[in-house]
């Protein structure tokens, strides 16, 4: 079938989201990317696969947003080269480099050919995600002592008075590891370059050692702070491949869990944002609210962060009438408390002085670089899957997208406040309309060579899971994609012209995932 005015043969991918897929040649691949970009679409993810176990070669896949949903184009490669699309979508730069590190397929004539996810843990001529590379049977990698130093060619800024500040991978606070290289004059930041990949654990290879049932738990730990979003995306992909739809009650409970995760994380961030701007009161107040919130999650769902509750076929735990009543009280309390705290934040001159104009990303830059998620919405990227392509039960809710144009820390704070209010409204709607019935159905065997997509708006932004199944209900290839891929380069942009001490505040206002990116 045809989709919009793309000159491609496309087939709809079965599942909860509107996804189309087609094979393309190198010319069509570039052309489709350009066409999507010209229409204001974005690159959601780019990944590679190795078909050698089926007598095929490598393929490169790109997931693009179009008016009707998601377009996944697959480019089978004759060798190991594919067309560079990083000039069309700057966000493709690091994804293409990751594909090279892991598969040995490279973007032809790309301006940036540096390694990305590979540091010194494995040699440059070894490609761990190739099918021939077996994790368990692999001969021992070079020992720590004998390994070559990881010498990453940062772009150097030169001139009088310029110096570099290296930060990380181990940071001063309790956060994930990554390296930031600042080039500064005095306090002013001229350039920031991040080096990520420290947390690369080989998650994608690990998935290939698992059955579809086993994979759910790992999916929930790609980025543990967004466990609900990942678990739902994974379940969505599996359900698409196996051709089932979970019972209504399960879908409604999933929405409840997803919104609980969003509220919990936003409360947390708002506290830290106050603290990083010198208002410890904010952290004390919001972390108290959050602890109350986590304790209700523990009491009603058996886990403070709601891990392993969404499983392929449905959800693992039901909520009863008492639980519904308890959440109603909870929502009323949190709504009132957050309104009061918003008032205090808004009227606190010292806080607003730090927030306003700090770490700004203008809408045109956000659009050009493909910014997404919560941070994108603060820079006028009006995109929220819950409103754009609402999966059940969001199709009943008319979710309001929180968007602002200022693109500074203040805007990202405001988006969080507004999203808490909206999530509380959605939770109320779920509790009002929660259908009766089963909470799960059995998952039939998946076909060999099946393909499924999960696409969920987590608290940080859209999470994508691309799944290929193999024989015997096994995962043949799985690519999880975190919105942090898109937004990390924007963080580098946001600090330009700001002073070094504002970096922690700007960084926290983005709150990006390292684990979800490093894989």
């Amino acid at each position, binding site marked *: 079938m045809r989709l919009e005015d793309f000159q491609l043969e496309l087939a709809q991918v079965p599942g909860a989201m509107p996804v189309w897929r087609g094979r393309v040649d190198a010319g069509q691949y570039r052309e489709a990317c350009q066409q999507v970009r010209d229409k204001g679409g974005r690159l959601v993810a780019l990944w590679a696969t190795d078909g050698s176990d089926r007598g095929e070669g490598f393929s490169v896949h790109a997931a693009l947003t179009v008016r009707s949903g998601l377009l996944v184009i697959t480019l089978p490669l004759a060798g190991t080269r594919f067309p560079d699309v990083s000039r069309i979508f700057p966000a493709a730069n690091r994804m293409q480099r990751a594909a090279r590190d892991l598969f040995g397929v490279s973007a032809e004539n790309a301006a940036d050919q540096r390694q990305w996810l590979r*540091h*010194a*843990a*494995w040699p440059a001529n070894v490609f*761990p995600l190739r099918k021939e*590379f077996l*994790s*368990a049977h*692999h001969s021992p*990698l070079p020992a*720590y002592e004998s390994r070559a130093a*990881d010498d990453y060619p940062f772009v150097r800024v030169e001139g009088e008075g310029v110096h570099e500040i290296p930060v990380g*991978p*181990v940071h*001063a*606070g*309790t*956060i*994930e*590891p990554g390296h930031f290289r600042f080039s500064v004059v005095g306090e002013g930041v001229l350039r920031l370059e991040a080096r990520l*990949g*420290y*947390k*690369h*654990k*080989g*998650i994608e*290879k*690990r998935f290939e050692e698992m059955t579809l049932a086993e994979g759910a*738990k*790992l999916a929930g*730990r*790609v*980025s*543990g*702070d967004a*466990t609900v979003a990942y678990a739902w995306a994974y379940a969505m992909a599996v359900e698409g491949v196996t051709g089932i739809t979970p019972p209504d009650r399960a879908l409604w409970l999933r929405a409840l869990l997803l919104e609980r995760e969003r509220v919990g994380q936003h409360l*947390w961030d708002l506290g830290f944002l106050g603290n990083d701007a010198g208002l410890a*009161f904010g952290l*004390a*107040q919001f*972390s*108290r609210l*959050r*602890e109350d919130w*986590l304790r209700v999650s523990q009491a009603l769902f058996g886990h*403070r*962060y709601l*891990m392993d509750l969404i499983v392929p076929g449905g959800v693992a735990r039901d909520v009863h009438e008492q639980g519904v009543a308890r959440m109603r009280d909870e929502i009323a309390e949190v709504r009132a408390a957050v309104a*009061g*705290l918003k*008032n*205090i934040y808004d*009227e*606190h001159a010292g806080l607003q002085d730090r927030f306003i104009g700090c770490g700004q990303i203008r809408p045109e830059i956000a659009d050009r670089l493909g910014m997404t998620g919560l941070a994108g919405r603060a820079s006028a990227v009006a995109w929220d899957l819950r409103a754009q392509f609402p999966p059940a039960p969001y199709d009943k809710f008319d979710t309001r997208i929180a968007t602002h144009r200022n693109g500074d820390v203040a805007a990202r704070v405001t988006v969080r406040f507004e999203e808490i209010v909206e999530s509380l409204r959605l939770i109320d709607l779920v509790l009002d309309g929660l259908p009766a019935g089963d909470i799960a159905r059995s998952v039939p065997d998946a076909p060999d060579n099946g393909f499924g997509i999960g696409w969920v708006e987590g608290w940080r932004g859209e999470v994508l899971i691309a799944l290929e199944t193999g024989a015997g209900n096994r995962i043949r290839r799985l690519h999880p994609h975190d919105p942090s891929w898109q937004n990390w380069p924007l963080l580098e942009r946001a600090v330009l012209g700001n002073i070094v001490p504002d970096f922690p505040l700007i960084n926290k206002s983005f709150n990006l*995932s*390292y*684990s979800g990116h*490093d894989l």
Partner: protein
Amino acid sequence: MYQLLKQIVVTGIKTESPPEPDDALRVVAQRLQADILEKFAGALTIRHVDAGSCNGCELEINALNNPYYNLEGLGIRFVASPRHADLLLVTGPVSRHMETALKRTYEATPEPRLVVAIGDCGCTGGIFGEGYACLGRVSNVIPVDVAVPGCPPTPRAIIQGIVTAISAGKVTSLVRSG
């Protein structure tokens, strides 16, 4: 400012009041303070190292400082440098890319450098196991005194782990006599 002060007054003190005598936490708090006073001159300092976790354990480590657990109220503080730390709180699994940083952090920590591994992955490698990019449990890379299981372990379990490390006998006393 009025609203802010009012909010503080209305909120009151949330730090959980001393539990009943048979409650585990009370035992913990008392023993902890006694141990800290005796062995660490009144304050225990912790350096957290994320060696490759999914960021789940970090959520709970951060929660230790919320008003309910109020870890600083017990004399335990997170510090920015391993050179200032008595204890390393390490989450895992240890990725190969973090191996160097973890070893360097360990080497930079002054003796007795207690190490508490946090979470199922820190204890066993967890769901990530060992592979081309992953070295598994923390004790595969540096010596570990106490391992706290859980995915993620609760704040209370983490506090318990810290206490166990202090009272394990490795530290006799850092307070100089005389």
